[in-house]
């Protein structure tokens, strides 16, 4: 692959990831429904995970395992394994958080009878 094209693609991936993050942030900040807020947060996390994986990618790298492709490959480049490990952990954590969030949403709905975040403001000032 051409180097400049790769660069472009790389930036494209970064851009997409950041865009996804921003979309998630938008959802979390603007949408009034609690569910949409939770979805927004999840989307934001996904975008971040994408970004992290992209950061760890090297041109022409293979999967960071001693696979056949790596051992037989000519340039012996593999992508950085650490970000992938991190992303795995982050995904797990994100999953946990989302689960907690959703359970809280259920409790909030039972308690308030609504999912509108503007109406759930018993605690303020």
């Amino acid at each position, binding site marked *: 692959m051409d180097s400049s094209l790769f660069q472009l693609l790389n930036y494209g991936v970064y851009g997409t990831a950041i865009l996804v993050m921003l979309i998630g*942030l938008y959802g*979390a*900040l*603007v949408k009034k429904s609690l569910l949409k*807020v939770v979805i927004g947060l999840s989307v934001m996390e996904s975008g971040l995970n994408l970004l992290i994986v992209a950061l760890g990618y090297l041109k022409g790298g293979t999967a960071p395992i001693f696979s056949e492709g790596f051992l037989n490959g000519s340039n012996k480049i593999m992508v950085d394994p650490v970000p992938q490990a991190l992303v795995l952990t982050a995904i797990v954590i994100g999953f946990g958080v989302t689960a907690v969030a959703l359970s809280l949403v259920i409790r909030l709905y039972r308690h308030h009878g609504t999912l509108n*975040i*503007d109406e*759930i*403001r*018993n*605690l*303020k*000032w």
Partner: protein
Amino acid sequence: METYSIIFAIFLGGAVLTYFAGKLNSILQDILFLGSVLVPTYLFFSGVSFGSAMPFSLEGISLLWGIDHYSWLFALIVLGLGSLAAVYAIGYMKGKERKGYFYFNFILSVMSMLGIVVSQDLISFFIFWEIMTWSSYLMVIYNGKDIQRVGIKYFVFSAIGAYAMLMGIVIVHSITHTFFIEDMIQAYGHMSLQLQIWIPILFLIAFAVKAAMMPLHVWAPGAYSNAPMAYTSLFSGALSKMGVYGMVLILVTLVSRLPQGIWFREVLAWLGGITAAVGTLWAIKQDDAKKLLAYSSVAQLGYIITGVAIGTELGMLAGLFLAVMHALFKGTLFMAVGAIEKQTGTTNFTEITGLIRKMPWTFLASLMSIIALAGIPPLGGFVGKWMLYESLITSDHYLLVILIFFASTAGFLYCYKFLFGFFLGQEEKEWEHVKEAPATMVVPMILMSVFMFVLGTFPGIILKPINNGLMDLGFVDSYKHLWETSVIFNNWGDHVILQPILYSIIAIFLFFLILVVWKGYKGTRYVTTKDISTSGEVPKEDENLTFSVGFTQPFLRAVAPVMRRQIDKYYTEFAKGLEGLFEFMRRIYTGNAQTYALYVVVFVVIVLLFKDVLF
């Protein structure tokens, strides 16, 4: 050396033990209480010698306790008045609730005041200062009356003062790297001018608050009148003197070395004078004895501040002598009010009249202290007043002396109001049952009256320690030059010789007294206060002849324009405004999770935008 540790251990242990002894036995508690005030007092005066100091260290800070003649003088005020007030308190607290609480705070107050005067370093000074503040605060709220306003006001003002002082302390420390007062004084000369000006100001704020100087006095009337009277005598008599103690220290050791120090002195002296005048006016207005005395305390401290702010030897002597006298007479007066409160249940002039025949000893003590307070010869107050005027006149404070004189003359009004309101006037049936207060309460009052009387003619007794103290602070010896045992001089050589005056007064008084009652006293009969002629008519039994409402109205009408403005109101408005602002500010926390998230985003964005400025 060890005496200090023992004294403070007894105070602390005594306070705790006394508190818990109340659960066992009331009399045991009283005895423990007396013991934990009197024993350290005895130890202090017998065991502590001048010049010996006790160094120790805490949290890596070197501390030092010791006394010189100057602090000994204030220790005398604190412990002397403290002991008498403690004896008084036994009688006063009999049958009252929260006895343990009272005793605990009383002992701690005495301890902290002694601690203040023995502290030779700023940290233990501050610690004891704060202990004094909160123990007195706990006393102010003892009655539970109006505590959210009066109590908090007292504490807030004290805290403002204390924190100003703390700021001064740490600034000094950042320069000298020690907390010793000695080192602060040494280093002061080498500081930048800005610091030389600010450090005394910061300290003086603290002391001015405690000494209830205008415009920081607004806590005083409420606090003095809300605290139990047995404590207020100490509060007004000794605790407020701590402000004077510090003020003198700062003025003499720091301000006097500053060329611009003259402005400090002038401002302080004028503030003192205004305090005296305004305090007096408000005292005249009060219908409650506690409030009256509270404002009167403010006014009296104004004189003291003026005296010490003038800073001449005579002024210092006057201020400190007045401080001692104020401890005596205001202590006695608050005790008298306490006695009346205990026996009648009220302290309002409009309710009580004609107690003179029921509480003669209390009356005698009040009379003596009122004479001393008004500064009338031959009692001790006169000596202080005289020296104050002379020092003002000889140091070119012409308008100030007029102001002080005005305050002092107007003071007669409340003096008379106090005596008339409680003791004189119609003897109402309502108060027929009233008895004299128990001996534990009367004896301290009478003792202090005797002191006042003796000091009126032989002021040298107390001027000697004052002079010693002033010499420790760097003044020249003024014996034979400004005072002798019973002669007082001014700087121009004019003098008052007190002994012949006293004897003449006594002789004239007795001569005419005998003339009036000669062959008469046995022959005359006592008639009730109903048996009087009002314009030739004999009033009926049920006719109300009590005159106590609107007592000083004519005078108040004359000064009405001055009284319309109250500093207190401005403070209240300010506090309200602040709380309104805070109320508005806390609405930042809208309660909406999205808003909070938005804050986060905005915060990140702003910090990122200004990252070059910030980092």
